[in-house]
């Protein structure tokens, strides 16, 4: 049955199954940040430079995909939403060092690889959401969370989830394995319920009175405040406290960009990475994604600024990542998620 729709369908099938062309004026991005949510950034880049951005996003396995694609891989840039994935990419040997004066000048040294294998582009902090009514204090330490005075009052998502995994790894970097195990046991004993849900559910559960404090990322609270207006009751019942380590600052993590080893469009890839550190992109990160811009001089979003002055923990991210495996093992060992 051939009709007028047949050629259209054939064209569609051809597009879906065709391998991407290595045309000029393109850059191919593999990203852990969701394609749809990063689209405004890439649209602005294309408008500014005329370079088209092709995107595929996933939640895991992009390094393995690039490894197996080998020299044929179309990937130019790998974008991650945390330091752990970019470290995996480095270990898999799929990145190449980039010497860029622009990036080295804009991105502070602690948020990029000394060898130039990856560059941080934006930052967020792991902070405390607390009930406005039932929690009077406006300062807290991570160590405090294991204090028995919080018994039955804390909500948290799975201890194996990457945000918590990175925080626990940071705790190990500060105090070592044994002390962290005790702290995790104390924290576990304080939980109001079994870990589940996401960071938003922490605010929801506090608002519902199931618990009084919990852990969440800085941008979730800001998103609920500014974008997801039907979640306003959750933020109205809660406040954000920037916790610190007793001997340090607030735990942060960065989204990072890495140039791939076989990047077929290297010049455009570098152009994109440098653009991401530029004024316009950093404003988009601040105001659309509610992250901390890494370029100095770019203003914070007002909601993020309202949390107070952020003092990022000085512990190097690369050092923290050395302990992510131990952190994962400890979570199982103390039965954190059970």
């Amino acid at each position, binding site marked *: 049955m051939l009709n007028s729709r047949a050629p259209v369908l054939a064209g569609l099938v051809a597009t879906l199954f*065709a391998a991407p*062309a290595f045309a000029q004026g393109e850059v191919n991005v593999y990203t852990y940040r969701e394609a749809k949510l990063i689209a405004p950034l890439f649209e602005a880049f294309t408008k500014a430079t005329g370079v088209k951005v092709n995107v595929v996003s996933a939640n*895991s396995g992009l390094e393995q995909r690039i*490894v197996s694609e080998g020299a044929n891989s*179309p990937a130019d840039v790998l974008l991650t939403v945390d330091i752990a994935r970019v470290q995996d990419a480095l270990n898999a040997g799929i990145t190449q060092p980039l010497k860029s004066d622009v990036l080295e000048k804009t991105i502070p040294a602690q948020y990029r690889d000394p060898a130039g294998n990856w560059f941080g582009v934006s930052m967020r902090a792991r902070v405390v959401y607390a009930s406005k009514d039932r929690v009077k204090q406006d300062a807290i330490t991570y160590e405090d969370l294991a204090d028995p005075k919080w018994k039955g009052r804390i909500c948290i998502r799975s201890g194996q989830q990457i945000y918590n995994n990175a925080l626990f790894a940071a705790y190990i970097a500060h105090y070592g394995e044994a002390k962290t195990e005790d702290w995790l046991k104390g924290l576990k004993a304080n939980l109001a319920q079994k870990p589940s849900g996401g960071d938003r559910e922490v605010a929801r559960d506090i608002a*519902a009175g199931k618990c009084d404090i919990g852990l969440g990322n800085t941008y979730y609270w800001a998103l609920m405040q500014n974008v997801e207006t039907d979640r306003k009751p959750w933020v109205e019942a809660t406040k954000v406290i920037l916790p610190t380590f007793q001997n340090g600052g607030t735990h942060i993590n960065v989204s990072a960009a890495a140039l791939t080893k076989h990047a077929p469009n290297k010049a455009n890839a570098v152009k994109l990475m440098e653009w991401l550190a530029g004024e316009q992109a950093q404003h988009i990160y601040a105001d659309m994604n509610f992250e901390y811009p890494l370029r100095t001089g770019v203003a914070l979003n007002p909601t993020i600024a309202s949390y107070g002055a952020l003092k990022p923990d000085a512990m190097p991210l690369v050092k923290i990542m050395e302990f992510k495996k131990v952190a994962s*093992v400890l979570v199982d060992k103390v039965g954190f998620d059970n």
Partner: protein
Amino acid sequence: MNGTSAPFAARCIVIAAALFVAAPLAGLLQRALSGNGEVWGHLIAFVLPVAVADTAMLLCGLAVVCGVVGVGTAFLVASFRFPGRSMLAWLLTLPLAFPAYIVAYVYVEVLGAFGPVQGALRALFGFRLASDYWFPNVRSIGGAVFVMGFVLFPYVYLAALVMFRSQNHALAESARVVGASPWRVARDIVLPMARPAIAAGLMLVLLEALNDIGASEYLGVQTLTLSVFVTWLNRGDLGGAAQTACMLLIVVAVFVWLERRGRGIGRNMRSFAGHSQQAGAHDGTLLCGWRGWGATLACSVPVAFGFLIPSAYLAQEAIVRSLRNGVDADLLRHAASTFVYASGAVVVTLLLGFGASMAARLIARGWARLCVSFAGLGYALPGTVLALGLLTPFALVDDAFNAVARVFGGRGVGLVVAGSGAAIVIALSIRFLPIVTGLAEAGLARISADLDGAARTAGASARTMIATIHLPLLRPALAAAALIVFVDSLKELSIALLLRPLNVETLSTYVYQFAVRGIFEDAALAALLIVAIGIVPAMRTVRFARPGNRG
């Protein structure tokens, strides 16, 4: 293909099906062997006790819910006439089109502290906070059984419905005439005859639950699959993760073996079933009065939980958000690509799955049946693990293409398989092949081998025999299998997420992008589109699966 060459062609098909699935398994095994095994001490001490217990509770709960709901509704729809039956018949298949994790999100909203249900309770009884009273928590194993049970029961429903409808009603009628109660007829005749199909349907439920990661993680259930991912991602131990996945495979192999043993028990019923098609005109006993409405209610409850409530919630969100943010114009393109991939998977699985099951029957040797069982293992791998296992074989094929291209043209052709939609279609087909082989084998088991013998004695070639006997008898089962593969492919997430080409989204990867940021309501329209695409084939299949209705 004529009578003498059939076994050779048959051998090729059976071996091809096994090799198809062997590719990712080899990839997995290679990774498992690369691991050093250090993960096991830790897993056995701290993870497995909880993970095994949670997984077992989840699977047992699901077996009960899906078994009771799936078989019960299929029995009512197939055996009785009651108000709304023809509509409920296809509505009962639709929950399948929802990704389980989306339904999990919906019920956490609907039954949560700020949802309409608890809100009404608070207003009614004057509570102020959610902590002032007790309400079941959706984020629990019980919640997971509820959510996944009402999404997955259609696997059992469809498999059982096809078998109930094509059963020998004359046999049941005779039993009634000699005084057996309807309950006894169901227990002693109808159920045993449908047992292979019910077991095949339950298998699909359990495997689908084992593959789930989104719903379990969100609801706080520690499944074995989750521990595979934690081992891989947090401990950076891909080898250990592959080993854990291999252990899961063994668990599944035991399931498959148990199911086959169960099929053996039902064998003595087979000869009755072989000649059942002529009873096709039977349309069920009329249920009058409260009994009829009772049946309507019994079939409506699962439809409400699995389909109507999630749809209503999503529809409301879709309207609110479309008015606020507008409609994403790209959705149509994503829907089209999803449709094309799913259709591709249906074609491949039907050809290969029916071919292999039929071939194994023709060969009638243990090794052939073993090959078909082996081909069923693709479903046992979590989608991401399957996709990871395929990366290496795809790369080998692409390298070969490029080597050839360089010899002739001097320039590489890029990633012909891994960089195109072919990767997704192949992976989906490997994963969903067992749906076709499972239902086809269950159907074939009910066709007496004497019938084959008679046809061959009468001089019919294998091709004629298949075309005139097996294919027509199997058509309802194959139609049901095609529907399940299609709908499953529409909503499949892990494979599409890792293997899709640049700039391509499927509806499920689109939905996931929002869900992962906790704003799944923004993708409500896309989630509804998945269901909408599934509706037309669901309506057609259920009509098609009715005896006497050949097209």
